[in-house]
């Protein structure tokens, strides 16, 4: 026990001084969080631009259209319509209240709605003061979800697996064929299994520490409240950490490539999984759910992201158990295969 504790301290110091760890685990997540925040807050605060609509000067409803706040009415001559539709106007309304467009989009749909409503009110033929457009018949919208939050869940899911770097480092330290220190440790009476265990503990603790810094940063600097349920969220993040470290040990032990190549492998794998879980663009997750739903179910980062979302925004803990089970299976499988690579070996020369 004392041994493990001492090893933990040494390895902790070693890891903490490693530039790779401090950058990828501590600083990089913060940089990403800022990027997400500045990009997506733009989307959230999006103000709809006015819609440009063209009409002939004789148009019977021009006075109504000019009253509508979000429309810019342009007087366009019939002959120019084709050209103006290219850039100046989104749609052209002719004198019979039919519409000409060059593409289908939100603006065109809105113009269509407006024109249709005018036509429909004409047909319904009721006095204008009977219409009360100020009434809202809708009650209690589901305001909680917002896309900003979802992206942050996948960011947290991704960095929770960043124990992968520490995992790689630990293996590097104990394998005789990977580093000089490894070779030296192998001839000492130091027990490899204990050294590995303390490495895993350190990796877990340090990465959890890095995660907490990110969470604090999100909560107090970016002022986003992500967690309403703590217990399951914490379990998921810890499972993510465990998965990350296991993956790191696996990457570290399974090949003899240099350290920097292994780190690139780790970044690529985690970035790819996060990408597929919708971190960069939520459309990608939708596309994967449509084309290959199984990928979403087995992608560890998707599991964490989706469950964090379900727990905290939908108050549903239904699929948490399944998610945790799959993550544990991954950990067991990765650690077991790594064990095969790590077992005692003899070298004639190194």
């Amino acid at each position, binding site marked *: 026990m004392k041994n493990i504790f001492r090893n933990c301290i040494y390895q902790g110091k070693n890891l903490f001084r490693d530039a790779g760890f401090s950058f990828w685990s501590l600083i990089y997540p913060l*940089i990403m969080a800022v990027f*997400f925040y500045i990009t997506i807050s733009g989307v959230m605060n999006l103000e709809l631009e006015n819609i440009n609509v063209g009409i002939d000067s004789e148009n019977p409803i021009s006075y109504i259209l000019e009253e509508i706040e979000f429309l810019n009415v342009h007087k366009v001559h019939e002959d120019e319509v084709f050209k103006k539709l290219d850039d100046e106007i989104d749609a052209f309304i002719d004198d019979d209240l039919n519409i000409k467009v060059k593409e289908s989009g939100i603006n065109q749909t809105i113009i269509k709605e407006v024109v249709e409503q005018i036509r429909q009110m004409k047909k319904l033929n009721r006095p204008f003061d009977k219409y009360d457009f100020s009434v809202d018949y809708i*009650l209690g919208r589901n305001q909680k979800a917002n896309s900003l939050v*979802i992206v942050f869940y996948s960011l947290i899911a991704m960095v929770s697996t960043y124990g992968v770097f520490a995992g790689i480092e630990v293996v590097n330290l104990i394998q005789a064929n990977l580093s000089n220190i490894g070779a030296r440790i192998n001839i000492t009476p130091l027990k490899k299994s204990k050294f590995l265990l303390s490495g895993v503990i350190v990796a877990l603790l340090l990465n959890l520490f890095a995660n907490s810094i990110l969470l604090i940063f999100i909560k107090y600097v970016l002022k986003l409240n992500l967690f309403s349920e703590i217990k399951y969220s914490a379990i998921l993040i810890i499972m993510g950490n465990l998965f990350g470290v296991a993956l790191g040990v696996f990457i570290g032990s399974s090949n003899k490539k240099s350290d920097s190549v292994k780190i690139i492998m780790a970044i690529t794998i985690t970035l790819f999984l996060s990408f597929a879980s919708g971190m960069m663009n939520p459309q990608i997750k939708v596309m994967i759910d449509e084309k290959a739903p199984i990928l979403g179910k087995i992608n560890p980062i998707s599991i964490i992201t989706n469950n964090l979302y379900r727990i905290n925004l939908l108050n549903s803990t239904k699929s948490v158990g399944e998610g945790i089970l799959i993550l544990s299976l991954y950990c067991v499988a990765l650690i077991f295969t790594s064990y095969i690579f790590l077992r005692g070996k003899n070298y004639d020369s190194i």
Partner: protein
Amino acid sequence: MTVFKYFIRIALRNKGVILSYTIIFFIFAIMNGSGTIQRQTNFMETRLDIGIIDNCNSELSNSLKDYLGKKNNIVDTMLDEEYIKEQIFLEVADAVIIIPEDFGEKVINKENSIKLYNDDRKVESLQIQNQINKFLTFVNATYENGEFNLVDVESALDEKAKVELVESNNVSSNDGITMWFKYYFNFTSYVIMAIYISAIGLVMTDFKDEYIQSRTKISSKKFLQFNKEMYLGQLVIASMITTIFILGSIALKGKYIGEVNFGKYVLNIVVFSFSALCLTFLINNVTRNKFVINALSTVLSLGTSFISGVMVPQQYLSEKVLTIAKFFPTYYFVRINEMTVNSFSDMRFGISMQLLFAVVFLLMGLYFSKTAQKA
């Protein structure tokens, strides 16, 4: 050509970086384009998938359901909040509405009556609110002597505006295939920048190794010749990478090339590649630390992509973000991909800006290399 030969050899030894980015990129490109791409021939209104739970089952509520059903696709749902939220989360439904028992009364009193769950991730899902409010406003307008005139409302709502889609001589920006090419090349800029910085950067760190440098200095090879070969090597590797992505687009969607302005994309990506290469040159002169290069490769490529509109369209980004983005070539690259280009003069500004950045990066790189030599 010893230097050139070894440059290429070391670069190919680092093929892992190039391959991993390339393979992942193509997996996504293939998945994204596997649906059939149709040319738009009709005006399409956005139809949502909505679920309706009717607790009232009156004439009014049925009439509302009929109206919404005409404008949207109805999906099955259940009166269970958790189930509804899950449906929306998985995007099975864009919105679910619950009609209360005392619906008629509430409508007459102009009270909030319908409970709506909608997907806030999608702007279109707001459409359903407008449809419901419009229907009920109309219904209320016909309220006389204690009853609604639903027949009138129905026939009025059947009144449609005819929408004619004029054939465009430009390829429309909303067209499926144009969208595909736009996304493909936008994402290519991200991958190219990431690969250039890390692949070429890693080779350069080997060349700039102190021992190697001392040896090359005492060799009979002229400094100029040495540099020439090294830059030729960079150029060859860079062109190879860019060519892979251009050929990739032809391989995936070659038969549609006639329908888009393919020349625009190719010219744009070539110019962008050049400026990304110059950026790599600058980075290589600032640092020779492999670790810093890896970090810069990820942060710069992802960062510029985020703020320049590769990940999220530029129209959604705030002014401030775009102002920062203007200091990177990616912004101008994306701008050209987004716009309809009729002649070269349309894209002249964007192209010259990218070239200008290339020159600036190059000059800065030269400055740093000079100061490093003096030191």
